[in-house]
């Protein structure tokens, strides 16, 4: 690890004297304490994983910024922490989701699903009904109920603001019809029960004898009993019908005796099921292979086409007899300077099937009007055209820099030997710029491999591949396919999307490996 550029590091030189040191310690401690508080909140809300991760970060932070031994890490800590939290952690999380059945049918954990069922209640036939009367107490509300049969009135012991989002329990006390507490309260307007209906749904009233009341109609509370009771073996027994439902940890559902599934489902580990599904299910495997092939072709074509155009233009603009080269260069970079979310939409308008300029020109010149939306091949051609337009300036800029670094005497020598323009290009220019450009070409390939925005804004992946289930688009790249699975359509299958993302991770890892091989990372060595 000998580093010729390294500054002789004396940890003591970083130490500050007196009040500065104490200020530093104070600030670091305050921030650490704040984070420790968040750790506590996370832990108390039942997120031990987040709590542990935050705890580790806080510890590392406090250590690095308090002890001189870890001085160097102060420069990299924030950057590394950001990348850990927003790249590495999400990647791992994505890999993890791929092995579950996480989707909008299985959004919650088993415990949450179980407590959902345990919180279900039913109004028993023999139960009593109580009519609701709301009173206004300033900005708050006081709940009173009156037994339908006996006429007994009960008043809540306290007023509540009725802004709660979770279930609250209010105790009731018996009261006469003209109780003193109610005498100075105004009855709430009649529509209050409607405006506050969702808040009232989350109110449980407890009579003095301990009977629990829940809302049964808009202005009525009734004696309720929990619908399900937890049996020892983990099954739930329906108190009303006497049936039994049991959790199925393979499918992620509670099922009754007939195997009928009850919503909501819960998230379970399904092992390699998703990967198996992608690789064996015909409705997924065929589209997957097709999309993969298209993604590779798309990236390869883009890199080659943009490189050819870029290097040609750069050679032309570099050529000294050309006048106004600075202006040409400026104008040629324009597509790169314009935000892509604008230029892609311009092409969407230009390629409009009925009103677009391109079909207008094609029609008047050749009498054809290709369908840019529903024919897969013309749609792909459009995408390749647009992406080449968007991407060539980057290659142009790169080649311009590279061409400037080629010594001019090489061309002079070859010119004396009678070499022509094309000979010069293929024998001198290309070999000299291709080698330093190779890592950047690979990076460009990787970028286009995941060129989500282009497809999303231009075609949204359409048209749909016939026979694909779940739906896949003819022009989807792999990353758009994953996005479609996760955020579009009726299933929102996050797990399947993560499985596709896992495949993309592997492919990108291979590209990254190639990149490392050709890029030869060297740091700390002076350029000469």
């Amino acid at each position: 690890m000998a580093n010729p550029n390294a500054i002789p590091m004396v940890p003591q030189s970083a130490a500050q004297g007196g009040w500065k040191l104490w200020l530093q310690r104070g600030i670091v401690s305050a921030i650490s304490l704040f984070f420790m508080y968040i750790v506590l909140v996370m832990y108390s809300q039942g997120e031990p994983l987040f709590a542990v991760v935050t705890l580790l970060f806080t510890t590392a932070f406090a250590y690095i910024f308090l002890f001189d031994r870890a001085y160097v890490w102060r420069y990299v800590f924030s950057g590394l922490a950001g990348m850990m939290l927003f790249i590495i952690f999400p990647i791992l999380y994505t890999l993890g989701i791929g092995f579950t059945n996480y989707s909008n049918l299985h959004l919650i954990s088993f415990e949450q699903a179980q407590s959902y069922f345990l919180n279900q209640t039913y109004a028993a036939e023999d139960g009593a009904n109580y009519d609701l009367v709301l009173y206004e107490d300033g900005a708050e509300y006081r709940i009173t109920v009156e037994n339908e049969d006996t006429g007994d009135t009960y008043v809540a012991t306290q007023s509540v603001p009725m802004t709660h989002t979770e279930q609250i329990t209010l105790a009731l006390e018996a009261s006469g019809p003209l109780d003193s507490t109610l005498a100075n309260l105004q009855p709430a307007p009649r529509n209050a029960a409607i405006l506050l209906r969702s808040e009232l749904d989350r109110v449980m009233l407890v009579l003095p004898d301990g009977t629990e009341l829940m809302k049964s109609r808009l202005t009525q509370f009734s004696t309720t009993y929990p619908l399900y009771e937890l049996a020892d073996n983990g099954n739930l027994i329906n108190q009303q019908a006497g049936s039994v439902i049991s959790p199925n940890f393979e499918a992620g559902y509670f099922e009754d005796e007939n195997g009928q599934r009850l919503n909501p489902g819960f998230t379970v580990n399904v092992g390699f099921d998703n990967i198996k599904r992608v690789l064996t299910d015909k409705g997924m495997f065929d589209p997957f292979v097709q999309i993969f092939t298209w993604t590779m072709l798309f990236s390869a074509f883009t890199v080659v086409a943009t490189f050819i155009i870029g290097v040609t233009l750069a050679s032309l603009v570099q050529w000294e007899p050309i006048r106004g080269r600075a202006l040409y260069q400026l104008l040629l970079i324009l597509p790169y300077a314009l935000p892509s979310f604008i230029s892609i939409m311009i092409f969407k308008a230009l390629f409009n099937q009925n009103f677009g300029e391109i079909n207008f020109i094609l029609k008047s010149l050749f009498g054809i009007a290709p369908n840019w939306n529903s024919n897969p091949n013309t749609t792909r051609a459009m995408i390749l055209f647009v992406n080449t337009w968007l991407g060539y300036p980057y290659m142009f800029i790169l080649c311009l820099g590279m061409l400037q670094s080629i010594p001019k005497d090489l061309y002079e020598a070859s010119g004396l030997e009678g070499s022509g323009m094309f000979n010069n290009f293929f024998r001198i220019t290309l070999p000299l710029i291709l080698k330093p450009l190779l890592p950047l070409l690979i990076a460009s390939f990787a970028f286009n491999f995941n060129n989500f925005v282009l497809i999303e804004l231009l075609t949204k992946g359409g048209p749909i591949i016939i026979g694909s289930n779940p739906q896949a688009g003819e022009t989807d790249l792999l990353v758009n396919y994953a996005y479609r699975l996760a955020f579009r359509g009726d299933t929102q299958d996050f797990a399947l999307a993560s499985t596709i993302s896992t495949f993309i991770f592997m492919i990108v890892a291979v590209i990254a490996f190639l990149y490392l091989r050709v890029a030869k990372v060297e740091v700390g060595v002076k350029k000469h």
Partner: protein
Amino acid sequence: MIKTREHKARVIGAHLVLIVFLAFVIYPLAYLVSVSFRTGHTLVDTIIPSNPTLEHWYLAFEQPYVGMNPQKKDLDGVDAVTFNNALGDVTFSADGRWTLTANPRVEAEYFPLRSYLSIGFLDRVGRVVSSTEPVHLVLDTADRADRYSDDVVFIAADGQASGQLIIPDTPAGAERTTVQYGNAYVSKPTFPVLSWLMNTIKVAGISAMLILLLSTTSAYAFGRLPFKGKGPMLKSLLVIQMFPNTLFLVALYLLFDKLGGFVDFLALNTHSALIIGYMGGLALNIFMVIGYFDTIDPAMEESAAIDGATPFQTFYKILLPLSVPILAVVFILAFIGFVNEFPLASVIISDLDKMTLAVGAQQYIQDQSQLWGDFAAAAVLSGVPITIVFLIAQRFLVGGLTSGGVKG
């Protein structure tokens, strides 16, 4: 130069190639500007708008626009026609006499409302053969009557006006006689373009500043300070920067959903969460800065260190001032990158007035309503400053992109 003629031909050929290519580059941009000045949201028109209007530009600047649509009523075979041109109810007799009873359809803040009346002759397919000189009408509050000259008919907001048009003889080829009038309307801005612009500048600016701060400090440690595990860490950084955040959008969404429950500024639908989320894109910038630091001779820093400067002082007072060009490049590239960023912003931000331009601009073009004109004006308004900044900075960028990061 022996082959002067061939040489000249080549030069002209090169110019031709460049100019033809530039036509392809510039046409879409000219088209965008053209669409922003067209009446309505049409895509079918000449590149110089046949009927230019500033309506889309008013809306892009969040100003209401008072305009009018040309309309017509047939006069053949009827005694009189009545219609409402938004200024009021008009009765138009076949002999050319008309009366207008003011009955403005919009609030006083949008006054004055303008309209016109004229006689038009149409041929069989509805094309105008000829039309008379129009009578201009204007409706405004009564106290502003003296602002208008005599060649317009002034109508107070509760007033009445009448007059007579001379109906000329039917010209050859005309089959229908119509009264042509302008139907005034007010279009109000649908989207907060200026807030989007402000949001974008705020998010991209702060993110780029933070990226600059973190990447220079990290690059200083990686490039100049010795510590354990530096080599493998750099290689992992290089691998990491090849994974764009589009690959784990789901995870990021769920992450912010969770974190938002603990810390307010990391909640979904906040700019702070978006900015923090952007910090993942740090790795590439670190490499660019390291690449530049490597070209700076460390002798000066060493001598500063010998004179007793702390590593932070050498970094802050010696290295940073020498690296201003690369700092500019990193900032501009990061800024433009964040302005363009669409996936994460679209997932995290859901409120209309919190959106950035990249997300907001898409709101114009939905499957059912495609407001191309409004989109074009908003796009030109927001795209021009970014483009100009980029073009000014491109001198640095040509060097920065190639020298940054990796060496072949």
